[in-house]
């Protein structure tokens, strides 16, 4: 049976169908999970896709953190299950305290929407397992609040535990240390601002996002087998 991925949908999420399609292309079966769900049973991995959960009111991710599904996401993560947050999903994971740091308005108040090159820094996270560090992937970004910040100690910790997963080759938003994606100490929770699902078909200009999604599918298969 193929790996089953739950794609969480909040009111205002808008990348869920693209994410499901890209995950299927990466070899998984994927299903939408409404934010009121209190269980993630039967899933091998969970993805929080992009969009504007709860309208991004207050701060991106601030209200989504209180959706019932987030309790299930926290338990799933604590049990070692792979959890990925893409763009708005990354913002939700930081607000929920499942990833360190925060995402603030871009440098210069500039909305960025373009393909960018990101370099894989750590090949040990759920999203980059088996991907050689140094690999450069071309994946689109599309955000206003994507500038990653954290205090100096957290930044040192991130580097120490291999939590700096992806870095921009050219920093589009002012993120500290050009960070595009981070992982928790265990490596099973990963957030990234670029949208891998938007780089999953030659028609979209790049298939580099599949490198990450396939790594996720392989990680989830390994967790299930363990």
């Amino acid at each position, binding site marked *: 049976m193929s790996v089953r991925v739950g794609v969480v949908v909040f009111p205002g999420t808008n990348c869920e169908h693209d994410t499901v399609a890209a995950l299927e292309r990466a070899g998984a079966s994927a299903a939408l999970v409404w934010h009121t769900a209190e269980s993630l049973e039967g899933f091998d991995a969970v993805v929080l896709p992009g969009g504007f959960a709860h309208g991004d009111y*207050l*701060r991106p991710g*601030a209200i989504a953190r209180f959706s019932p599904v987030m309790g299930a996401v926290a338990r799933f993560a604590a049990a070692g299950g792979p959890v990925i947050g893409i763009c708005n999903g990354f913002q939700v994971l*930081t*607000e929920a305290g499942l990833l*360190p*740091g*925060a995402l*603030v*308005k*871009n*440098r*210069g*108040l500039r909305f960025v929407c373009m393909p960018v090159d990101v370099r894989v820094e750590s090949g040990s996270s759920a999203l980059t397992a088996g991907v050689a560090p140094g690999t450069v992937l071309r994946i689109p970004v599309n955000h206003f609040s994507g*500038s990653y*910040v*954290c*205090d100096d100690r957290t930044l040192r910790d991130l580097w120490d535990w291999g939590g700096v997963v992806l870095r921009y080759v050219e920093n589009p938003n*002012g993120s500290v240390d050009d960070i595009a994606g981070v992982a928790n100490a265990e490596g099973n929770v990963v957030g990234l601002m670029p949208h891998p699902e938007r780089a999953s078909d030659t028609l979209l200009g790049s298939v580099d996002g599949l490198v990450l999604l396939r790594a996720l599918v392989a990680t989830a298969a390994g967790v299930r087998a363990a």
Partner: protein
Amino acid sequence: MRFSARVEVRLRKGIADPEGATIERALPALGFDDVRDVRAGRAFRFELEAPDEEAARRRAEQLAARLLANPVIEDTEVELRTTPLPGADG
């Protein structure tokens, strides 16, 4: 007792504030070239019931820390009154 609360949320020192910086850059064009250190933030007003001012403050600070601000990047300041705040309806 009924209290009126005002919570100001602002970016912590050391966190870049592109909104404040952009406003500050625009000011000389309007003749406000004597203004410095503009910081953008936001404010929330609400009413709450509490036995005394200390309890009201504690409650408002909890709300500020749990939801209104993200402590990783923001600081808050709580202001309490027993009478409606200026500009509040009713």
